[in-house]
């Protein structure tokens, strides 16, 4: 953005070009003049440009997001705050949200991912929670793309670099590779925090005459216009247009966390809000808006890292590790003492007013003076046209002669299905000494410190399903998250989403968004699974090429006693394997088709939400009663992949019966029907489980047992050793990353 250079305090002439550079349409600019009754100053133009950006205003998605279910008795705070809050009993609350840092991570993978982690943590601790777990959902381009390796390496190191230093365990996530992400990777990070339900902090700056204080790091010229960048498409010239990338400082953030929690133990705070995208601008406007008050800022008081910063730069800077708070009058000194102890900047930079206006002063001049509603309520809202597309359909043909177990080896060694150990070993997943289940299972489980309760956490979405059928695919993402939480024995409580899509101005993409939101809404209603927070990342396109629709779902569940948690690894030889759920042999859009037949076609698997719920409730009940301790849900790769994962995790082999119909062996073992679980239990327990399923009318089948040899065998199809499976499964990632591509130096 060239504008930075010629900023003068005197009102420049605002040219159409300048308006365009600020990502505003002609009509939007007309609206701004109308709302102000005059031409905006340059600072005001900058403020409008970020507040009206897609990233901050949700102008393309707002009307659709309204349709999501957000309420339940256990929801203490739904969307609209920095993060959502749920009641988890005993006066405890879980606070969580997921957020993207896609564009910055593509430009500078280490710092982009690191600051993404820092940003989402601030969203959670600004509400009074101590972060207790992190997740990350990552999508990269195809492995052979020249940039992929470098991006993987940088992103993973950045997530670890920030999260590890913060001392918050990173307990899980997802990694996918697909060519549609070649030019637009996705880095979605989720943070879960723990607070007392009666000590939650919100961002409404209620009341006039209260001091507005700035805390954390100094303001520099970082990432000016990051929010508008996150709302624009890339093209090949983006390299040159790069705004300064923000560098993360996890050390300062750790101090900020401790200092904020210390201040929150007093009753000095009226409102508090992190400075995320669009920094000072959005934090002050949002706090004023929610509090129904006005805010007056004196920029001369803002702690500055660089000399001669203009008002425009300060208002738009995205320097990290900063917070804005409104205190009760007279409590400044007490707050300052806390921040001084933690060696952080602290400054009173403004005051709340009763004017409902945002007034910004700099060097004795008023550089912006605008009604706050112009930035929030009056921000544009679009009902963008969309073009409905029939979903992909059909159950594709396949070569029934392919050897089953060889295909299994190929699949579990493929980029999307191989072990992610290379990734998660770079994350500290056991710090805080409450990680009961780390990465590698269906859901991570983190104990609520000092209790027997546990929070189960997962993130899920299968973008290939969403591309084939945006509605069913989005339902599937919710259902899979719900299933993963049920599979460890927790009760699914609430959802956060991260809606990653291409350009909403294209009717095709807009349809993906609309259908996706509808699908999420439908599934969340059926599963009693409210959406309590989320984030939208649109314009994930390069040279007109959009990503697969990727509505990532993060979810949290609660278990009463972590000692009863189920896990995927086989525990005993001689256990019976019981499949819960119906096997239709659905191969459309399956991993099998893609990896073995090289095709991405057919219908996405349909999700039957009532079955999903019945099966999940049934399995969770067994776990809660202590009847089942070894459970895995069936998803990518179907039954045979699930069995292989359970065998590798437990180091115990298994033998499986043949498919009921010998000619349909491949769909039986690799089909991706939804709503299914696999349970391993001692023979007599298994009989009881089967009886119970029978009584409840739940489809079930005994499909094999665990054995005292370290191999996996299928009747009539031979066997494969666990060693061969594990080697294939574990080696892809380190082999790929160990390749000759140069590592970045930092």
């Amino acid at each position, binding site marked *: 953005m060239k504008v930075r250079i010629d900023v003068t305090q005197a009102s420049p002439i605002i040219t159409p070009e300048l308006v365009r550079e600020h990502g505003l349409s002609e009509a939007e600019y007309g609206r701004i003049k109308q709302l102000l009754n005059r031409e905006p100053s340059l600072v005001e133009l900058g403020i409008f440009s970020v507040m009206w950006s897609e990233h901050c205003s949700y102008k393309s998605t707002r009307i659709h997001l309204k349709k999501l279910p957000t309420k339940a008795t256990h929801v203490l705070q739904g969307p609209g705050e920095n993060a959502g809050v749920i009641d988890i009993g005993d006066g405890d609350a879980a606070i969580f949200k997921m957020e993207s840092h896609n564009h910055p991570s593509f430009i500078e993978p280490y710092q982009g991912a690191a600051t993404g982690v820092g940003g989402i943590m601030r969203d959670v601790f600004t509400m009074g929670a101590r972060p207790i777990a992190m997740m990350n959902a990552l999508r990269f381009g195809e492995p052979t793309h020249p940039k992929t390796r470098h991006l993987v390496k940088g992103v993973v*190191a950045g997530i670890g670099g920030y999260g*590890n*230093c913060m001392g918050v365990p990173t307990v899980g996530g997802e990694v996918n590779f697909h060519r549609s992400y070649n030019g637009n990777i996705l880095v979605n990070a989720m943070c879960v925090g723990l607070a007392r339900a009666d000590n939650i902090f919100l961002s409404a700056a209620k009341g006039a005459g209260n001091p507005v204080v700035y805390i954390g790091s100094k303001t520099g010229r970082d990432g000016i216009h990051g929010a508008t960048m996150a709302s624009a498409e890339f093209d090949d010239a983006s390299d040159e247009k790069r705004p300064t990338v923000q560098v993360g400082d*996890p*050390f300062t953030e750790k101090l900020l966390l401790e200092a904020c929690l210390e201040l929150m133990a007093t009753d000095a705070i009226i409102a508090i809000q992190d400075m995320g995208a669009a920094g000072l601008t959005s934090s002050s406007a949002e706090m004023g808006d929610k509090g129904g008050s006005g805010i007056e800022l004196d920029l001369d008081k803002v702690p500055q890292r660089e000399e001669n910063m203009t008002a425009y730069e300060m208002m738009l800077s995205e320097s990290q590790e900063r917070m804005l708070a409104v205190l009760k009058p007279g409590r400044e000194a007490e707050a300052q003492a806390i921040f001084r102890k933690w060696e952080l900047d602290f400054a009173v930079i403004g005051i709340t007013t009763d004017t409902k206006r945002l007034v910004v002063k700099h060097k004795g001049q008023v550089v912006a003076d605008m009604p706050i509603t112009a930035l929030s309520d009056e921000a544009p809202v679009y009902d963008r046209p969309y073009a409905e597309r029939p979903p992909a359909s059909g159950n594709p043909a396949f070569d029934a002669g392919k050897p089953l177990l060889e295909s299994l080896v190929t699949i579990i060694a493929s980029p999307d299905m191989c072990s992610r150990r290379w990734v*998660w070993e770079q994350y*500290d997943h*056991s*710090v805080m000494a409450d990680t009961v289940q780390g990465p590698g299972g269906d859901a991570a489980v983190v104990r609520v410190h000092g209790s027997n309760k546990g929070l189960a956490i997962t993130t899920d979405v299968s973008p290939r399903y969403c591309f084939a059928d945006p509605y069913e695919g989005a339902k599937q993402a919710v259902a899979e998250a719900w299933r993963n939480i049920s599979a460890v024995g927790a009760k699914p409580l609430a959802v956060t989403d991260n809606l990653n899509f291409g350009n909403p101005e294209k009717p095709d993409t807009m349809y993906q968004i609309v259908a996706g939101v509808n699908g999420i809404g439908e599934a969340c209603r059926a599963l009693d699974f409210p959406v309590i927070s989320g984030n939208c990342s649109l314009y994930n396109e390069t040279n007109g090429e959009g990503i697969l629709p990727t509505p990532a779902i993060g979810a949290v569940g609660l278990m009463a006693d972590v000692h009863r948690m189920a896990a995927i690894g086989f525990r005993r030889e001689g256990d019976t394997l019981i499949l819960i759920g119906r096997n239709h042999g659905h191969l459309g859009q399956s991993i099998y088709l893609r990896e073995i037949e090289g095709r991405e076609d057919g219908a996405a698997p349909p999700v039957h939400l009532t079955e999903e719920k019945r099966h999940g409730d049934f399995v969770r009940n067994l776990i809660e009663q202590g009847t089942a301790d070894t459970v895995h849900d069936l998803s990518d790769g179907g039954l045979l992949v699930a069995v292989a994962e359970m065998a590798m995790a437990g180091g115990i082999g298994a033998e499986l019966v043949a498919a009921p119909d010998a000619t349909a062996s491949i769909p039986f073992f690799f089909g991706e029907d939804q709503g299914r679980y696999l349970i391993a239990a001692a023979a007599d327990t298994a009989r009881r489980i089967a009886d119970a399923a029978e009584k409840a009318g739940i489809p079930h089948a005994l499909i094999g047992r665990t054995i005292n040899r370290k191999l996996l065998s299928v009747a009539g199809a031979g066997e494969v050793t666990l060693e061969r499976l594990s080697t294939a499964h574990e080696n892809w990632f380190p082999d790929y990353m160990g390749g000759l591509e140069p590592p970045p130096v930092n």
Partner: protein
Amino acid sequence: MKSAVIVFPASNCDRDAATALKQLTGQTPHMVWHRDSELPQVDLVVLPGGFSYGDYLRCGAMASQSAIMRAIKAHADRGGAVLGICNGFQVLTEAHLLPGALMRNANLQFVCRPVALEVNETQSAFTRKYEHGQRVVFPVAHGDGNYFADDETLNRLEGEGRVALRYAPGQNPNGSARDIAGILNQKRNVLGLMPHPERVVDPLLGGTDGIKLFQGLLETLS
């Protein structure tokens, strides 16, 4: 046994250490801020894991200059026990309470995983409850655990029986010289180690192999 856990800016295993101490000694440790210049009356001082000062410049470098370090040195000189875990080990080497240095992991990556160790010396309050050669599994979680010292120092450490813990053959996660995971000072009252014993004191969290370390201290220092 009375203990203190030192809190540096961006220590992050301080709570974990305190929880383990409370569980295994029955007494709540004192949490001591790095800027304090005096220690409370304690038998054991724990320098916890974490990223003091963000690991900026060098891990442990800035923390080793904290006001509290002088008191910790005096405590060690008096024969008081000092346990440095992970970042705490780095601080102890930077403060010259232990020889050598901890460098960047050989593969330049942070590593978090359970690692098998061999208890190499049982002649210390920290290791007396283990058998010589016993295998234990503690998790490691560090980016800079690659122990380095010159050959003369390494020979001396081995000769004087001060290599308390070694990574089991084939398990060295960071390239440490002679598979060293933890070392003692000459008086054997200061132990620094990269793996985290405080994370393996609860069967629910992946093992209980760390319990004996705290029990040994409890028996010796009570």
